[in-house]
């Protein structure tokens, strides 16, 4: 099923994007990503171990020629930090893509949207392809696009919470007014959550913990892959309207 979408001239073939955190080891990471069918993987930027050079490198297991590497600014609580990590990520990687996070609160990991807006504007001017992680706020989504965001990534629920799509109506409004791709990021728990996001019309879903934290991450990765396909097809097929009362599926005609 060829059904790609484009962000600033880059074609994305998979509508499921996956993170690479929290796996048991790099081999499990690689197998889960393969099972998910994703062509985009997110990574974090951290200090290289300078004393133990035997430690393996993530990119030995995830071929950057096969997958689009999307670095994040996870863990950044200030605009200055987010800019610093973004610039290092661009230099460590091969593209201008950045999943921009400016976190505002430790317990919820909700974004600091004021800082996010500021950082988006600065990075977009520096030529970054900015994909900001934001709350499911339609006005904020608009403001981010005005500031230069190339896609908007509203959360479904707090990162790693597995609560699923908590506000489908806000997402619907965001989607209705969208002029850039909308990728639901964070908070999904299982395949049906992913399907709901896609049924709403989201362009893609990004998740990590829902796969990495499952009892069988490889099987859950496959489930997510099918969830995305099911939801996308249902969206394109056009679902029936919801009604309060029944409509018979079998004809009256010919009844005894």
């Amino acid at each position, binding site marked *: 099923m060829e059904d790609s979408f484009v962000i600033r001239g880059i074609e994305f073939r998979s509508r499921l994007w996956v*993170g*690479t*955190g*929290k*796996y048991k080891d*790099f081999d499990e*990471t690689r197998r889960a990503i393969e099972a998910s069918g994703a062509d985009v993987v*997110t*990574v*974090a*930027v*951290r*200090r*290289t171990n*300078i004393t133990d*050079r035997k430690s393996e*490198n*993530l*990119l030995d297991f995830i071929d950057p020629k096969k997958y689009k*590497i999307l*670095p*994040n600014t*996870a863990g950044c609580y200030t605009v200055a930090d987010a800019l*610093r990590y973004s*610039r*290092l*990520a*661009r*230099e*460590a*990687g091969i593209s201008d893509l950045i999943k921009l996070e400016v976190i505002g609160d430790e317990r919820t990991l909700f974004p600091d949207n004021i800082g996010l807006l500021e950082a988006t504007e600065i990075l977009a001017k520096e030529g970054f392809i900015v994909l900001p992680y934001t709350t499911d706020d339609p006005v904020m989504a608009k403001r981010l696009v005005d500031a230069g965001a190339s896609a908007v990534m509203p959360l479904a629920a707090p*990162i*790693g919470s597995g609560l699923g799509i908590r506000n489908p109506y806000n997402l619907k409004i965001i989607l209705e007014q969208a002029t850039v791709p909308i990728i639901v990021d*964070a908070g999904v728990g299982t395949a049906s959550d992913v399907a709901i996001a896609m049924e709403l019309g989201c362009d893609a879903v*990004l*998740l*990590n*913990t829902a796969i990495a934290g499952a009892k069988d991450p490889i099987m859950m990765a496959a489930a997510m892959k099918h969830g995305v396909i099911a939801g996308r097809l249902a969206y394109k097929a056009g679902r029936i309207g919801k009604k309060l009362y029944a409509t018979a599926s079998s004809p009256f005609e010919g009844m005894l």
Partner: protein
Amino acid sequence: MKLMINGETVDNVKAGTVSELLEELKIVQGRVAVEVNLSVIKKTEHETFQLKDGDIVEIVNFVGGG
């Protein structure tokens, strides 16, 4: 020369340039980004950028993340 690398003081660094430092630390070039005193040093400048005593160096790479 003494450098602060990734938050640790490293004495007796022989390297003069960023490239030489990565080699001395046995770090494969190309997959890391280097920052000296809060400025990112582009890969194309690794061979020419001269380090000096007391520089604060950060060497980063990609790790698993969401």
